[in-house]
């Protein structure tokens, strides 16, 4: 025929190939055949007269797959079990293609890592929101913890307004606009670190400032977030419709979301922002925001120890604005915190908490903003004033590990509460006694708001005088120190030092020491008239 006619060359049939090889190789020789999947390559030595079945046995061992999952393709043909290798012309050095048919088809798809990769630029879908509660069921942390989180979650879910208000709080926005801060925060979190180790893509994401900024933009702007979420949901549902897609989704979720979410949850409360649809990077963030509230207010936790009243008081609270802190959810949060010192401990020991405290103490404005937002102070400008002046002291005390440990000590808290109650009683019994009206005023803000107006007029009548301030300071001091010594005794050594330095006004020294919590340098600065930092 004409086909072979060009140049008179006869196409050597494959037989000739076989012939030449048979000259070189004897019968039953071992040949090395490369078996290739889209992801893998293995060289398998097999007798050249083997059957496909025997070949598959070897392959199944090497690729750790079941024989019936293996589909071998050579030169465009599927190798059937009954065939022999030589029948198909499989020789030494040739390549056979392997398809491993798994249910999820991970080995046959050429780029399975990309479904995971492509999601990274986006916050993790809130589709896992519902699943968070199931995660809770896994029993991470104490039961209290989980309920707490769920409660908060529900709270925020039911009140998106609250959430958006939270977001609008310039404080929050400030924080969010600082990518370095956020990154630092997240990185310093040991769980995050673990997660990052396990999943390098996460650290990559964190390291990408652009990405961070984007994410924070998103977190900041609920509307944008929603839009994004909607888009993502649509994309996801598209994915679902593809046969392998749903599985890929599930895989994605389990590989990525779960660890992130569980890590974030252990950090106490990424949930609030899940309502925004945010992922855990914004999740770690709001946990800071949420938790800020109970802590800076030393009167807060003792408040919560009056559960019925606080619940009642809290009911009147949520009337708009930043009253969220009085909402039942928050109240129960406070309550649970006081009931569960471990919780408090956890919160406090979280590294970001520390850094938050630090930044708070370094930035009195910030701190005062936080305080002022606390509705306990909202109705009482005088209180605010007092508190503001106490702020530096207070903040220092927050740094004081003793203070922190006191807060985690339920008995101490109870004692504190008793003191306050005693003061309250005193006030009603002996209104003439000069007692800082502010002190009973504060706890009553949470426990019974009705008392607040009652007590504040009385304190409004008496201008805050030095004595009151001193007493307040002493209270704070006691609270911080947890001891029963008078400041004089406690600061004896410091007083001596100050004396030796030439500050001979003992009273002034004492005041300064009380105000600065025993910090000599700060006291000196105070004495010299400059603002302690």
């Amino acid at each position: 025929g004409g086909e072979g006619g060009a140049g008179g060359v006869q196409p050597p049939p494959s037989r000739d190939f076989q012939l030449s090889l048979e000259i070189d190789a004897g019968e039953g020789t071992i040949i090395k055949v490369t078996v290739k999947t889209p992801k893998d390559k293995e060289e398998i030595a097999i007798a050249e007269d083997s059957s496909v079945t025997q070949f598959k046995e070897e392959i199944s061992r090497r690729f750790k797959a079941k024989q019936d999952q293996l589909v071998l393709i050579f030169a465009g043909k599927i190798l059937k079990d009954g065939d022999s290798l030589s029948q198909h012309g499989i020789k030494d050095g040739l390549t056979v293609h392997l398809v491993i048919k798994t249910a999820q088809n991970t080995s046959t798809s050429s780029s399975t890592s990309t479904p995971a990769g492509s999601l990274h630029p986006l916050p993790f879908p809130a589709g896992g929101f519902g699943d968070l509660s199931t995660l809770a069921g896994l029993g991470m942390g104490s039961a209290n913890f989980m309920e707490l989180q769920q409660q908060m979650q529900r709270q925020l879910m039911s009140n998106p307004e609250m959430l958006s208000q939270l977001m609008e709080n310039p404080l929050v926005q400030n924080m969010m606009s600082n990518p370095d801060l956020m990154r630092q925060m997240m990185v310093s979190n040991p769980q995050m670190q673990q997660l990052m180790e396990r999943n390098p893509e996460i650290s990559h994401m964190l390291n990408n400032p652009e990405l961070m900024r984007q994410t924070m933009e998103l977190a900041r702007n609920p509307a944008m977030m929603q839009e994004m979420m909607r888009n993502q949901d649509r994309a996801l549902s598209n994915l679902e419709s593809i046969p392998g897609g749903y599985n890929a989704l599930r895989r994605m979720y389990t590989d990525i979301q779960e660890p992130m979410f569980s890590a974030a949850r252990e950090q106490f409360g990424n949930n609030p922002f899940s309502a925004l649809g945010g992922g855990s990077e914004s999740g770690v963030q709001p946990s800071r925001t949420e938790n800020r509230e109970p802590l800076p207010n030393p009167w807060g936790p003792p408040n919560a120890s009056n559960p019925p009243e606080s619940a009642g008081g809290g009911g009147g609270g949520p009337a708009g604005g930043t009253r969220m802190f009085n909402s039942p959810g928050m109240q129960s949060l406070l309550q649970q915190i006081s009931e569960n010192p471990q919780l408090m401990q956890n919160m406090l020991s979280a590294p970001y908490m520390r850094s938050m405290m630090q930044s708070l103490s370094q930035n009195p404005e910030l701190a005062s903003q936080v305080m002022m937002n606390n509705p306990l102070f909202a109705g009482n400008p005088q209180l605010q004033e007092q508190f503001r002046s106490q702020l530096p002291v207070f903040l220092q005390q927050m740094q004081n590990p003793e203070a922190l440990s006191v807060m985690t000590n339920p008995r101490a808290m109870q004692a504190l509460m008793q003191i306050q109650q005693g003061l309250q009683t005193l006030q009603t019994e002996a209104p003439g006694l000069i007692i800082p009206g502010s002190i009973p005023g504060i706890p009553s803000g949470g426990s019974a708001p009705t008392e607040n107006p009652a007590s504040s007029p009385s304190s409004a009548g008496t201008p805050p005088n030095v004595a009151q301030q001193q007493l307040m300071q002493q209270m704070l001091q006691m609270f911080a120190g947890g001891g029963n010594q008078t400041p004089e005794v406690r600061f004896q050594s410091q007083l001596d030092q100050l004396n030796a330095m030439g500050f001979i006004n003992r009273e002034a020294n004492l005041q300064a020491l009380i105000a600065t919590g025993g910090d000599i340098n700060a006291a000196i600065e105070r004495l010299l008239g400059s603002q302690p930092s």
Partner: protein
Amino acid sequence: DARTTSPGVIKVPRNFRLLEELEEGQKGDGDGTVSWGLENDDDMTLTQWTAMIIGPARTNYENRIYSLKVECGPRYPETAPVVRFVTKITMNGINNSNGTVDSRSIPVLAKWQNSYNIKIILQELRRLMMSKENMKLPQPPEGQSYST
């Protein structure tokens, strides 16, 4: 016969080309997503070829192995081969009832050049599987073939 259609360009004789393709198909280089070879080892005319395409991930073709037949006529590679699917598939440009590939719908076939080869056709078909217009088309149950 080795006519030259344009001055200075020597056409490779058909059988040389096909032998090259045969060898390449056996070596199995590439990413392993397409495969081709002679249908019959003793086909001296190197006309009937059989090929495989592995359905790409994230499409409705995922996890499937599509078998095809490629016929390289006497005027190959000047003329494009005739391609048809053996395994049932739903895809633009593929005849629904017999699996023949419409040369006008597949770019490499419509604009065939003699430097193209079987591998390129298979890769093109696979790429088309990933296109938006095809990737979500509902597919017939696996393992069905057209009756020739």
